[in-house]
């Protein structure tokens, strides 16, 4: 018997097994990536996308040993468009993983499409409270942080400072309400104003006049993307920064905002689960490679996008590429270890993370650039969320 014949027999046998075994290893990982890539808040989606693709690239185009087939679409900051894209990826393209969305309202519009069709959604940002509690689902993983968490840490920080009065401002949607609820949960002082504006509002003149009249010690805002950039610029232009301290959630004074606003940002404090200078090897590599590839410093959004790709990589590898078996894959995702750029973290029973939250201050680095630096010990250590008790998952 010559070798070619043996070879073809083996191939034949292999083909036969392929048709018999249902839980076969896939030949690639299909990922649907939906994010906000245009408009004033595009920078956030762009950072998640760029970091996600950087992780894929550093992995040689593979995730978990399988070629990564990532399809990217723009939700245009519109929930209806996001929902359509989810539907397309789930029903037509039959992707293995969905990810990418920045905004909670868009993610919540699309998520039922994924859950109803048993497709796993790995959230690189939006992690709203309803999905953490009563409406939790095995098909949703928050790779980022619960919507309230940054704000809880900020509330705790304000309490540590013995701040007496705080004025709160957020857009009128799910994440806005989650955020201010989070701040108030840990803030012991007096809330002198709590204002909800239209989502996407860009002119804050009326709210700034209110703040001037209310004379709070601290202003805390949850205004992601272009909204926050406009608010901070107008806050400075109105001269309010002379008497009132601005405290921000980490993404509210991150590199994208610093780029847009400039030197006025120096000395602002914020809270986050990640920082450029977190001293772990994975983070050092991430920051260096991101800057090399894109000629800018990564934001929190970028860190979250990168971690999401790392999680997929680790889970697919641990499952030996058998990603068709969803139940087994979900179990793997829950427990698999990977070198997250934030350091150690684990998933709670509701598949939201338990992790540290740090205080950061905007300082000048050795090259004279404005960057966020982590200050002192974590404000909240090994912190979960307040909703897990309502989630029936074990």
């Amino acid at each position: 018997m010559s070798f070619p014949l043996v070879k073809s027999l083996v191939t034949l046998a292999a083909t036969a097994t392929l048709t018999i075994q249902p839980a076969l290893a896939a030949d690639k990982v299909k990922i649907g990536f939906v994010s906000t890539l245009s408009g004033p808040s595009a920078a956030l989606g762009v950072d998640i996308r760029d970091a996600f693709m950087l992780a894929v690239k550093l992995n040689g185009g593979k995730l978990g040993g399988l070629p990564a087939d990532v399809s990217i679409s723009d939700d245009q900051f519109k929930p209806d468009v996001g929902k359509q894209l989810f539907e397309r990826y789930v029903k037509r393209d039959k992707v293995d993983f969905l990810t990418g969305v920045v905004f909670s309202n868009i993610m919540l519009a699309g998520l039922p499409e994924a859950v109803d069709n048993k497709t796993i959604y790995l959230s690189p940002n939006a992690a709203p409270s309803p999905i953490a509690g009563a409406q939790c689902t095995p098909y949703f993983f928050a790779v980022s942080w619960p919507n309230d968490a940054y704000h809880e840490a900020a509330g705790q920080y304000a309490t540590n400072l013995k701040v007496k009065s705080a004025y709160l401002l957020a857009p009128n949607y799910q994440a806005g309400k989650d955020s201010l609820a989070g701040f108030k949960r840990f803030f012991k002082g007096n809330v002198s104003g709590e204002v909800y504006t239209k989502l996407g509002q860009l002119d804050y003149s009326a709210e700034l006049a209110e703040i001037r009249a209310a004379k709070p010690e601290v202003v805390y805002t949850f205004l992601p993307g272009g909204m926050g950039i406009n608010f901070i610029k107008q806050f400075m232009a109105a001269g309010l920064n002379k008497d009132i301290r601005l405290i921000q959630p980490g993404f509210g004074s991150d590199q994208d905002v610093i780029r847009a606003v400039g030197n006025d940002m120096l000395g602002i404090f914020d809270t986050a689960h990640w920082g450029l200078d977190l001293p772990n090897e994975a983070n050092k590599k991430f920051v260096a490679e991101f800057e090399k590839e894109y000629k800018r410093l990564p934001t929190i959004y970028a860190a979250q996008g990168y971690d999401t790709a790392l999680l997929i990589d680790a889970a697919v590898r641990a499952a030996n590429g058998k990603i068709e078996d969803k139940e087994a894959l979900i179990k793997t995702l829950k427990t698999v270890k990977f070198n997250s750029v934030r350091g150690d973290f684990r998933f709670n029973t509701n598949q939201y993370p338990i992790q540290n939250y740090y205080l950061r201050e905007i300082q000048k680095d050795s090259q004279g650039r404005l960057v966020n630096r982590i200050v002192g010990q974590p404000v909240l250590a090994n912190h979960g969320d307040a909703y897990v008790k309502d989630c029936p998952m074990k």
Partner: protein
Amino acid sequence: MLEQALNGLQFGLMLFLLASGLTLVFGIMDMINLAHGALYMVGAFLAAWLVQLTQSFLLGVLLSVGLTAVVGMLLEATLLRTLYARDHLSQVLATFALILIINESVRMIWGSDLALSAPQALSGPVQLLPGLLYPSYRLVIIAVGLAIALLLFVLVTKTRMGAWVRAGASNREMAMAMGINIKVLFTGVFGIGAALCAVAGAMLGPLFAVQVGMGENILILAFVVIVIGGIGSVWGAFVGAILVGFVDTMGRTLLPHLFREIFSPQFASAAGPAVASILVYLLMAVVLFVRPQGLFSGRS
């Protein structure tokens, strides 16, 4: 309170720039031009691009105003002119198509957004009264808005062209019969409308964001203004715009307070912002109920 009044005035004046062009086109040519907001966007993009190119805010804005006027007149002469004889539905369809075409063209030329900042000298606050700081850039907007409003009044009420415009708005056939060159007048009015759009777009760019689709949101408010003010009346557009500016600004801050006094805190925090965002439409509904032709109708 004074600060809120200034904010309302500033927003109202910018709305007036948009609404005055819209009301003239609607009143004189009996043409519904949904693409008016697209010209506002084109003006803002041109300004952002030219400010970057010339490194001068003033020069960039002036050039963008001129260029947008040219774009507006070209549109009128080539395309919109053929729509005057058609019914309103055809005009709405055609100009809606124009919005989509202009939006995508702008996206192809400049991308989906451009950065435009207020000049450095105007980035800080000025002290108006003891204890009242106000952003200097917003004061400049108020000054520019008032100056243009004044200019427009002189133009409409004191000049021959203004007389033609008023004649056209009040009775088009009669104006034509009296020998007014309607074609040139229409193109001219359209050019002025486009230029006013560009002023608003360029001035508001640093406060909002220069992005594709920015025109649609503000166009709706501009239509509310001309419905309130009365179609075809520049004075009506002015009053309507200031009214809408004030109601929007005041509503956003006073209404939640008012609700908190009357209702439970939970209901107030949910309903306050919701009602504030529809307040201008409530105002429009009331005006339509009491005076269906608007506060100052330009038509006889």
